[in-house]
C-alpha cells in the first residue's frame, strides 16, 4: 500500500474543517444525539468512539445530511450546511461516505462504481471529461491497490477489497470531508487489522478531513489522531489516544478505552501539587494511596459524574478492604484507583489465586482472585506462565495513576 505512487488527482483540493455546534438528533421525539459540539480540524482524522446505540451513526449521518438535526448547526469548511433555516442536501455537501458494508452498487463493475460519483454533474462547479474520468478512476483504484480489478463485479471481491473499493469510490470525487461508519466491522478479525492499516496509510496520504465511527477502541486508537468518546448521545471526552488511555476524564471513559481495574485505596500522604508539570495547566492534586497492590502514586479527580456507571463488561470492579492493620481506615479518605492490567506485576507468593489464563502469545492475561474474594485482571509479557489454580503475589508497577473519590 505505502508503495503506491502518490497520485495528486486523488488528493482533496481543500481539507475542510468540520464544526458541530450544539447538534441534537432525535427520532420521533427520542434524542439519539444530544447537544454535541465538536470541531474536526481540516486534514485530521477523528474517531467517534462509543458503545452500540450511543448515537455515533446518527451524528455522522447528521454531518452527511442523511439525518436532519433537530437543533444545532453543522459547518463544513466555511459553509454552514445545516442549522436553523439552513439545509444543504447531502449530494451538495461535497462529503464522501463509506458505509459499514461498503454499499457498492451490485449491478456496476468496480470501475463503474468508482466512476459513479464522477459523473454527477456540477461537482466542484464543472463536469469532468470522459478521459479525465477514466484517469481519476485509475488513480483511485491504484490508490487502494486494486488497479487490476476494475472490471470485476462487487460480489466477486473479498470483503476487504469491497471496502477498499468503497473507499476509492468516495475519494474519487475529491470530497472536502470523508465520513466512515464502522468501515471495518463487517470484516473478520485478521482482515480488519490489515485493511485498517492500509486505509490508515491512504488517509494519511490523501490528507482528507476524516470522521469515522467505531465502537472498537483499538480501531479508534490506531486510526484516529483524535478520539471523541460518545456516551448516550453526549461527548464524554475528546483527546489523543494517549490522553484517553492514561488520563481518562471519567471512570466510564477509563473502562471503555481499555481494560481497567478499579482498586479501592486509602489516601495516605497529604496532597501535594507536584503533578502540575506532568498533567499540564489545571492538574488535579496528587498523592499516594495505600492499596492491596501496595502504595500507588495517584492524581485525584473531582467526584466523577455519578450518573455514568461503569461500562458493563470491561471493568471487573474491585472492592478491596483497607489493610486490616490500619485502625484509622474509616477516617482516612477512601478512593478508587484506576489500575491497568499491564501495571499489575506478578511475583511468586501466595496472596492471590489464578482463576483464569488467557494466552495470547505476545502476552498473557490472568484473572486473579485476591484474598478478599475480589477479582483483578493482570497482563504480562513475561515468558513465565502461571496456570489456573497457581498462587501468586501482585504489585502495582506503573507511574501516576488516576483516582476518584470512592
Amino acid at each position, binding site marked *: 500500500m505505502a508503495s503506491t505512487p502518490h497520485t495528486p488527482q486523488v488528493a482533496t483540493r481543500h481539507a475542510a474543517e468540520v464544526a458541530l455546534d450544539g447538534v441534537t438528533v432525535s427520532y420521533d421525539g427520542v434524542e439519539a444525539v444530544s447537544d454535541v459540539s465538536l470541531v474536526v480540524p481540516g486534514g485530521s482524522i477523528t474517531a467517534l468512539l462509543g458503545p452500540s446505540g450511543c448515537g455515533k451513526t446518527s451524528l455522522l449521518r447528521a454531518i452527511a445530511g442523511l439525518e436532519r438535526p433537530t437543533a444545532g448547526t453543522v459547518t463544513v469548511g466555511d459553509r454552514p450546511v445545516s442549522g436553523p433555516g439552513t439545509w444543504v442536501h447531502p*449530494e451538495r455537501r461535497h462529503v464522501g461516505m463509506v458505509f459499514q458494508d461498503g454499499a457498492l452498487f451490485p449491478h456496476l463493475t468496480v470501475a463503474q462504481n468508482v466512476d*459513479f460519483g464522477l459523473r454527477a454533474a456540477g461537482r466542484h462547479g464543472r463536469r469532468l471529461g470522459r478521459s479525465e474520468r477514466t484517469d481519476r478512476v485509475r488513480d483511485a483504484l491504484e490508490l487502494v491497490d486494486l488497479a487490476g480489478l476494475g472490471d470485476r463485479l462487487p460480489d466477486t471481491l473479498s470483503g476487504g477489497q469491497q471496502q477498499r473499493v468503497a473507499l476509492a469510490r468516495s475519494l474519487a470525487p475529491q470530497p472536502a470531508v470523508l465520513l466512515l461508519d464502522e468501515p471495518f466491522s*463487517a470484516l473478520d478479525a485478521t482482515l480488519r487489522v490489515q485493511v485498517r492499516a492500509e486505509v490508515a496509510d491512504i488517509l494519511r496520504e490523501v490528507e482528507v478531513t476524516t470522521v469515522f465511527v467505531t465502537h472498537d477502541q483499538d480501531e479508534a486508537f490506531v486510526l484516529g489522531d483524535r478520539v471523541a468518546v460518545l456516551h448516550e448521545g453526549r461527548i464524554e471526552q475528546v483527546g489523543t489516544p494517549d490522553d484517553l488511555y492514561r488520563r481518562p476524564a471519567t471512570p466510564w471513559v477509563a473502562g471503555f478505552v481499555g481494560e481497567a481495574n478499579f482498586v479501592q485505596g486509602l489516601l495516605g500522604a497529604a496532597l501535594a501539587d507536584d503533578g502540575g508539570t506532568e498533567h499540564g495547566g489545571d492538574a488535579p492534586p496528587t498523592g499516594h494511596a495505600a492499596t492491596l497492590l501496595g502504595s500507588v502514586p495517584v492524581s485525584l479527580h473531582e467526584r466523577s459524574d455519578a450518573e455514568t456507571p461503569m461500562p458493563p463488561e470491561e471493568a471487573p470492579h474491585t472492592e478491596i478492604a483497607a489493610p486490616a492493620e490500619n485502625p484509622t481506615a474509616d477516617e482516612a479518605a477512601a478512593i478508587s484507583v484506576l489500575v491497568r492490567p499491564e501495571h499489575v506485576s506478578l511475583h511468586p507468593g501466595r496472596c492471590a489465586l489464578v482463576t483464569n489464563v488467557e494466552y495470547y502469545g505476545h502476552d498473557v492475561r490472568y484473572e486473579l482472585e485476591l484474598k478478599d474474594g475480589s477479582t483483578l485482571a493482570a497482563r504480562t509479557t513475561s515468558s513465565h506462565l502461571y496456570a489456573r489454580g497457581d498462587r501468586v503475589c501482585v504489585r502495582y508497577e506503573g507511574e501516576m495513576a488516576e483516582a476518584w473519590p470512592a
Partner: protein
Amino acid sequence: MPTVTTTGAAAMSGVWDRRISPVARHLVPIAIAVVFSGPAAFVLWRTFRLGALSESLDEIIDPLWRTIQLAVLVSATAAVIGTGLAWLTTRTDLPGRRFWRVVLILPLVLPSFVGAAAFIAGLAPGGIIHDALESIGIDAPRRFRGLGAAWLVLTAFTYPYVLLPVTARFANLPANLDESARMLGLSSTATFLRVTLPQLRPAILGGSLLVFLYTVSDFGAVQLLGYDTLTRVVYATRQTNRALSFAAASVVLILALAVVALERSQRGAAQPDRRATVRPMRPIRLGWRAMPALLACTVVAGIGLVVPVASLGTWAQRGLAEGRIGFGELIDPTISTASVSVIAAVVAVGVVLPVAIATTRRPSPSSQAAAVAVIGGFAIPGLVLALALAVLTLNTPALSRWYQTLPVLIGAYVIHFGSQALASSESAVRAVPANLRESGRLLEPRRGRRWFHVDLPLMRPGLVAGGGLVMLATLKELPATLLLSPIGFSTLATEIWASYEEGFYAATGLASLVLIMLSALLTWALVLRRSDVIRS
C-alpha cells in the same frame, strides 16, 4: 463476505442435494414441464395437422402486429405505473401508504371483460365517467373502442402484476445503496433512475412479462373494445376455419414463448433476497409533491376500481330495485368459485414449488425448460387451452374417465395460471438460507418434520403471495370453466358471462360485485394478512 459465500456454495453442492438422486432431481422438473407443455404441444401439433399456417399468414399478419402493439404498450405502461406506485407506497412519506398498498392491488380482481363493459357503460350518458367528464366541461367520447381503449382498460387491470413483486423487492433493498448514491452527488430522482431501478429490474421484468402474457391471451376486453387482435381471429374463425384459428393460436403461443425466453435471458442473475436494510430507510419527503402523488394514486384507483364498481353498482341497483334479481341464485356459484380458486391456488403452488426449487437451487437446462413450460401455460388463449385439455383428457385412456370432473378443471387452472406463482415461489425458496437447512439436518433426522417446521414456514410469505395471484386469476377464469367443468357446475364468472351475453346487465352487475367482494375478502384473509407484500 467470502466466508458466507463459501458456506452457501458448499451447501449448494452439499450432501443435502446429493441425497436426492440425480434422476429424481431432473425427472421431477421435467415431468412437470411435460404436463405444462401438453396443451402447447397439442396446439402446435393440431396446427401442423391442419397445415394451414402458410396460407393463413396473410390473415394473421395484421392482427399479430396489432397484438404486439397492444401488448407492448400495456406491459410498458403497467411497468411504469406499477413501479411508480410501489415506490410511492414503500419509499416515500405518502399519506395513507398502508391504505394505498391494499387498495391499489384490488383492480387485479376484475375480469378484464367486465372491466371493459363497465367502462363502456360508464362512458354512456348517465354513466359515471360521462357525468364526471361533463361536470368538468369535457364531453365524453361518443365511442370508446380501439387501441387506445384496449390499452387503457388492460393497463388499468393488470398493473398490479408489476406492483406486487416490485413492492416486495423494495422491502429487500438495502437502503444505504440509495444513500451512498446521494453522497456521491445524485439527486433523489437520479438515484432512483441509476441505482434503485437496476436493482428492481428482475421484479419489473417478471411482472411486465405476466402483463404481456395476459394481454396477448386476453379475449374478453379486446372484443368488447373492438380491437382486433390474434385472439379475436382465434375466436372468430374457431368454427368456420379451424386451421386459421389454430394457426392464430400457435402464433400467439410462439410470440409469448419468445418473449418468455427473452425475459429469462434478460433477467440476469437473481438478486439474493437479503433482508439487508441495516437501519430503517428514511422515507423520502414528498413535500409539495405529496399532492400530485395522491392525485396519481386516486386516478389509478379510480380507473381500476371506482369506475367499474360504480357502473356495475348502477346496473345491479336497477335490477335489485325492481326485484328482478337477488343474491339467492348467487350463493352456490359463490361457494363453488371460492372453493375451486383456493384449491387451484394450493395445488398450483405445490406443483410449481419443485420447479422453483430446481431453478433456484440447482439451475440446469431441465429446470430452465420447466420454468419456460410453466410460464408458457399462461400464453395460450383460454378457450384453446380448454379445448386442448379436453382433447388430451378424452384421448388419454387413464384420464378419459376424469373428463369434465373437478380434478381436471383444477388441473386446467393450475396449468393456465401456475406461472403466476412461479416468481414468488422462486424468491420464497431463496428465502431459506442453506445453513438453516443444514442446522435443521443436524438437529432433526426426520425429513418431513424439517420440511414442515423449517422450510415451509420460511417460504410461507412468498408461497402465499404466489398462491394469491393464482387464486385471483382462477376466481375470474371463464372459458376453461365453461367447457371443462362438470355438468351443472357454475361459478360467478360463468354467471357474469351468461347474463352479459344476453344483456341481463342487472344480473351481470350484481354477480360482478359479488365476485369483486369475494376476491377482496379472500385476498385479504388468505394473502395480504399472511404475505409480507403489505407489511414492511
